[in-house]
């Protein structure tokens, strides 16, 4: 240890050879489960059930049959039309569930940061606090609102939305539940924009709408991108909201809900589960690896400040 420290104290304070080995062992341990499932998704049913996936190193043999059957269905097991429609549903659910909360939250964050009124600080604290309210608190009332509307006694305040069982009935909860974190993150960013910039614009006669459109929005793109990735992963990977608000049908249920029910149905239909799992995690993994920098920035802005 002392030898390492003497060499160059700044560069190698913890990173001894021992540390490097430990890190790599943990990394391998962390990656093996995913790798095993990935390899298995390309093995035939007989192979999967007769030999462990590690046999591919000695007896390589691969097939795309699992993917074909999982995506398009029509095979021996009744997968119906396959998971492709559910994959479409996931995309359909995700796009508005990312864009709409970001728009709403950016507006709110600007207002809380730059159009101060009595109580705007209190409101910000309140929204911040809402961040960790479990969404279980909202599920039952929200579902009732969507199916039955809101009433006091016999007076109907809000008629039945009629959006239960439609995509709108999933977009809306996702939007609502995303707002506290989105507003908090974007407020952190927007409130740190230079004051001079805003004041100069107002001097030139720009009102808040113009300032927002021409100054705040363009400058906030990095923060918006960071949150967008966050929200994308959250919506795509969600199960609770999907189970509660989407009825599990091919019309609107996302792939995650379908996968969860496949696990229940074919507890060990590994030829489907392996390929199905990879179909569902391919898109978030691609997003994750290509935009990791933004994602990390968003995480850091959210928790260490």
């Amino acid at each position, binding site marked *: 240890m002392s030898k*390492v*420290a003497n060499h160059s*104290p*700044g560069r*190698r*304070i*913890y*990173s001894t050879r021992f*540390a*490097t080995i430990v890190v790599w062992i*943990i*990394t391998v341990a*962390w*990656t*093996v*489960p995913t790798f*095993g499932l990935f390899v*298995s998704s390309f093995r035939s049913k007989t192979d999967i*059930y007769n030999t*462990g996936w590690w046999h591919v190193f000695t007896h390589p043999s691969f097939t795309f049959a699992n993917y074909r059957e999982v995506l398009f269905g029509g095979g021996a097991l009744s997968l119906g039309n396959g998971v492709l429609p559910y994959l*479409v549903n996931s995309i*359909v659910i995700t*796009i*508005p569930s990312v864009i709409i909360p970001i*728009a709403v*939250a950016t*507006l709110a964050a*600007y207002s809380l940061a730059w*159009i101060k009124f009595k109580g705007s600080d209190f*409101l910000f604290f309140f*929204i911040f*606090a809402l*961040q*960790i*309210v*479990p*969404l*279980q*608190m*909202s599920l*039952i009332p929200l579902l009732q609102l969507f199916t039955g509307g809101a009433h006091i006694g016999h007076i109907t305040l809000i008629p039945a939305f009629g959006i239960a069982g439609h995509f709108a009935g999933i977009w809306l*909860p996702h*939007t*609502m*539940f995303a*707002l506290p974190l989105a507003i908090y993150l974007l407020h952190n960013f927007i409130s740190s924009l230079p004051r001079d910039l805003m004041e100069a614009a107002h001097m030139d006669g720009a*009102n*808040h*709408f113009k300032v927002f459109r021409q100054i705040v929005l363009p400058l906030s793109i990095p923060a918006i991108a960071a949150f967008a990735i966050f929200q994308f992963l959250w919506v*795509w*990977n969600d*199960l609770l909201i999907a189970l509660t608000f989407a009825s599990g049908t091919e019309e609107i249920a996302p792939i*995650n809900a379908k996968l969860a029910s496949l696990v229940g149905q074919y507890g060990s239909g590994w030829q489907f589960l392996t390929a199905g799992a990879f179909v569902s995690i391919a898109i978030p*993994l691609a*997003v994750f690896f290509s935009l990791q920098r933004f994602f990390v920035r968003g*995480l*850091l802005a959210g*928790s*260490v*400040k």
Partner: protein
Amino acid sequence: MGTFISDNAPKFGQVFIAVFGFLAIMSAIFFIAGKANGKKSKPIANIVFLGPAVLLLGAGLIVPTFQTIMFSFKNDTSQKWVGLANYKWIFTDPDIHLVLFNTLLWILVVPVVTTGIGLGLAVLMDRMKNESIPKSLIFMPMAISFVGASIIWRFVYNYSTRNQPQVGLLSAIVKLFGGQPQNWLLVKPLNTFLLMIIFVWVQTGFSMVILSAAIKAVPADIVEASALDGAYGWRLFRFITFPSVRSTFIVVLATQVVGALKLFDIVRTMTGGNFGTNVIANEMYAQVFVQFNQGKGSALAIALFMCVLPVLFYNMRNLRLERSHR
């Protein structure tokens, strides 16, 4: 293929309408509200900017919270008041005791393990060569859903009956060392810990990334000066690094506690809450959507809420402190 397109194209039509309809309405409001000037312009701007968020938060979180509180004092269909009966059920039913015990186990074990391993990795990786590769790989499960992660680990824990070859990694390893593979997910209380491993596997990357950033923010001259004074390895960690990142460590720990409390997907996908692995969030779901008992489900939601309240107050205090420093 033809029916696939005709079945699914309208869905994208809905996306288009939702997104562009929303943006068009917002632009129209912007345009009209932007015409206002003089004294009214500031309140109008506030209403336009803040209105949608307040409305959505009110309808989506605030009003429902009060409704859930009310439901928790009502019967299964929310038609009759039943006083504290649902809460009495939580505290007296032996099945729920197990649920509460498991949840407690989750919040005691999982956050410490995830944050601990995360910190350990962050420290060991600090200034390591090629640190970004192991970092990405350990962080990767963050992008995988709990459902996907559950399938990955179900395969690791897979058990084949006696005469079949063991294709699950865990069974194979146990067999390699001369042990007897079992149907792991049925073994109490081991199964709860096997589920915890999944959560740890997903969340450790989060702890690691955030703590790693905090460690990098420790001023280099402090670290180098203490290293010259003879503090390296464990001593450096104990007296310099850890104290510098302690506040971040606690924030991460608190985040993991909240995550472990709300945990639902893993239990739902792996065991459905059976075999003694049930937790509050899953039981709440089961009460509402399987047993159709809104009263009990709401009371469980409130119990969950009570558990996160201390973290909520802690976060609020931090935010206030941080703001007063500015």
